[in-house]
């Protein structure tokens, strides 16, 4: 059956880098206080979102334009539960949101994984657009294109206005998710998935049910997108239907491209850089999509492996 028990190998260099990374992240609110802590929190959330995309892209070889559907679904579940049912406890909101996102991913994923490449890409794109369309049309539920918001949610002894406190909550989620992702990718399951990406015909001839593995990856991807979506809500405060669109999916794609999708750390690095650049650039650049598009084209043509790709060329042994 499907084995998730991992025997990961991580060299000394990788271990050292990871430790330094963790230390910096833990100390971050003191190293980069104020607005930067907020940005870092957002980066970690977006890193999870980028990782959700990369599960499908790098490890399964499937390009999904619709990860925002599950990200947005989770976010919307949180705001809907608050606004219509008055629930304001994160302990209830987040798990339900993640379950919703997972259920959606399982259902849509079942159809999507029957197809590859273009058909898969367009199908995922269409699903995102469909949900966006529903979110806009069902005004009685979602308040249409104006969206719904939430106030500060209670968080331990304080509330989510306390950026530092929320940062540590997100960091905890982040570290657990990254660890699990690492375990999954390096387990026999993860290796089979990568084998499916590399040579589907060969692996199928050995008896592997390709569709089932892809479906499970899709679900895992949906779970991560859902976690990211739920965590993102207190950071944005207000959620609009646009969170479901391909443009948001495009951000995940961009973060992975920029950071280097072939590396494990790539999406995380890409997410951090992207979030900080965006915060800076949106204040200065009106035509942000133009800038983004040009970088995507350049990356696709010239720097396929992104930043981590360049780094790994110089320094061996980094995950």
């Amino acid at each position, binding site marked *: 059956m499907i084995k998730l028990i991992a025997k990961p190998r991580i060299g000394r260099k990788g271990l050292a880098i990871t430790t330094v990374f963790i230390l910096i992240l833990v100390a971050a609110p003191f190293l980069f206080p104020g607005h930067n802590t907020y940005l870092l929190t957002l980066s970690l959330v977006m890193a999870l979102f980028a990782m959700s995309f990369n599960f499908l*892209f790098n490890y399964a*070889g499937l*390009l999904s*334009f619709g990860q925002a559907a599950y990200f947005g679904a989770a976010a919307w579940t949180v705001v809907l539960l608050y606004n219509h049912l008055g629930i304001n406890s994160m302990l209830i909101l987040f798990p339900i949101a993640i379950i919703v996102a997972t259920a959606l991913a399982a259902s849509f994923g079942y*159809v999507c994984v*029957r*197809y590859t*490449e*273009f*058909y898969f*890409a*367009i*199908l995922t*794109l*269409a699903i995102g*657009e*469909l949900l966006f*369309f*529903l979110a806009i*049309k069902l005004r009685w539920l979602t308040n249409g294109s104006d969206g719904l918001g939430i106030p500060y949610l209670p968080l331990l002894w304080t509330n989510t206005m306390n950026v530092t406190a929320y940062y540590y909550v997100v960091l905890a989620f982040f570290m657990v998710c990254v660890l699990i992702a690492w375990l999954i990718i390096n387990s026999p399951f993860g290796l089979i998935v990568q084998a499916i990406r590399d040579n589907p015909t060969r692996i199928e001839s050995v008896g592997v049910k390709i569709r089932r593995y892809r479906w499970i990856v899709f679900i895992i991807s949906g779970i991560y997108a859902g976690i990211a979506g739920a965590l993102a809500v207190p950071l944005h405060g207000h959620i609009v239907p646009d969170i479901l669109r*391909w443009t948001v999916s*495009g951000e995940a*794609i961009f973060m992975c*491209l920029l950071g280097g999708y072939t590396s494990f750390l790539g999406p995380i690095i890409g997410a951090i850089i992207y979030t900080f650049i965006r915060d800076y650039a949106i204040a200065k650049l009106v*035509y*942000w*999509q*133009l800038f*983004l*598009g*040009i*970088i*995507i*084209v350049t*990356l*696709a*043509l010239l720097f*396929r492996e992104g930043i981590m790709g360049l780094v790994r060329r110089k320094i061996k042994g980094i995950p």
Partner: protein
Amino acid sequence: MKLVMLVYILNGIFFASILFLISAGLVLIFGAMNILNLAHGSFFTLGAYLAGTFIILSTRMGFPALMFAVMILATVIVGIVGLGLEVSLFKPIYERAHVYQLLLTFGLVLIFEDIFRLIWGTTSYSAPEPYTYLGYLTMFGFEYPVYAFLVMGVGILSLFFLIFLLRKTRIGKIIRVVTENRYMAAALGVDTKRVFSQVFFIGSILAGLGGSITIPMLVALPGLAVEMVVLAFAVIIVSGIKSIEGVYVVSLIMGLLRSFGVVYFPEFVLFIIYLVVIIVFMFRPRGLFE
């Protein structure tokens, strides 16, 4: 049957004609080059914006008769832009994995969308002069815009032109051969790279024509590009890439679905269309007309 049904049917054919123009281009490109050009919708939108600007310019400068000629000019410009992009950006990545093509065209969609915003603004853009110029035709007791008939005519003519091109001309045969098996075609001496450029040019022209023809009756927004490319791809999925007549038939079905849908279940038109696509996709993944 109520007389108003006739209006709905005409509306359906009208929308189908537009859908056909953009879908036919995408089918040709996808079939021959195995590239999904997400920016195809951007070409359509570019044609619409360009034609709109030219129409407004020509009416303002006092040459309303040029209105129709400039639409052709807009179409040709889109074709040239497409060709330029193909030669400069697409060629290097043909041999690479398909994901790069998708990413590349995705980047282009973003670039185009902001260019539209930059040049033409974010509010809706329209140029109704040719539409008002041609007036209405009174039939069976109601009026219907003549311009719509023009669009339907262009749609049918394009269908015939494409059938003629693909069946009767030498270049059409080469395109079909490359669609069937490009490596074999190359082995037989066909310059596939050149054929790719030609196909891309024709496809872009069709998209540009679709946009130019449409602008007098529909408004242009930057978001039009993605909307159209998803619809066009829906058509391709349902019809398959082997038959251009199939594309027309499916466009008709979609057009009629939309025009009746807008009347009877307006909130869920798009939903119904997607549903049809998903159903066809699940049972006949190669399309209805393979």
